């Protein structure tokens, strides 16, 4: 895992998982995976008002999953994959650490059993 120590704020897993828990927001992320889009463009396939979509975008922004241009009238939203990647890596790392340890323990126990026999 390539950890960028200069990152000002570490990913907030709480916010990320809350953001991902909603099917509409996952749809929005999928849409943004295809490229940046304005609120209008995002809203068109949904039976939802622009303010409702804007609310969802705010949740995604707070989780660091989406960034929005500040200097343009259209303010297109863009997927920001880095915090997601780090959060996923973190969760996997804990599990991998222990499973790797268990493998080593397995080997050690075999060795100890043989030593006891000798």
């Amino acid at each position, binding site marked *: 895992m390539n950890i960028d120590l200069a990152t000002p704020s570490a990913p907030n*897993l*709480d916010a990320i998982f*809350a953001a991902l828990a909603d099917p509409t927001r996952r749809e929005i992320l999928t849409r943004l*995976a295809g490229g940046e889009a304005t609120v209008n463009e995002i809203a068109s396939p949904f039976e939802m008002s622009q303010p409702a979509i804007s609310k969802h975008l705010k949740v995604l922004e707070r989780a660091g999953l989406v960034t929005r241009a500040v200097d343009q009238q259209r303010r297109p939203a863009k997927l920001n994959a880095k915090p997601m990647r780090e959060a996923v890596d*973190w969760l996997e790392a804990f599990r991998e650490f222990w*499973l790797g340890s268990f493998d080593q323990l397995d080997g*050690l126990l075999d060795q*100890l059993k043989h030593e006891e026999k000798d």
Partner: protein
Amino acid sequence: MTELPVYVLERAFNAPRALVWRTWTEPDLLSKWYGPGVETVIHELDVQPGGQWLNEMRMGDSSGYQKSVFTEVVPPERLIMLMSTTNADWELAPNPMMPDWPATLLTVVTFEETDGVTQMRLEWSPHNASPAEIACFAGAVENLGKGWGAGMEMLAQILADLQA
């Protein structure tokens, strides 16, 4: 009081329970298996209620530190400890990269033997955790427990698409 999230890992070992117990309670054995791909240095291992396990993991030039305080020791059946990440002075220090990850995890290890095979079960849950830490751990467990749940599958797909 809502129930705390628990993360569980289990593994069967083809060895008697008394032997598996030794690998947790003798420092020269514990250091051989704990921590894959790192050099594990055990500064202290005092397996009794109130006793502590001070663990350093060396990865190249840097080290990670953990302090575990045993709260229950029932040989050879059960170990309960509070595992925390610390700084080099063994003071509790939340991980700067993941501030919402619980700083201390209540860790319950149980050993059950059937016909020479030992089933080892580890359970982790947040201890004295803030609501943010509990929510973070709950979200993690929920998604990991499903081995990539719906949200994570979506995430994996998005990441794969981005890299295509």
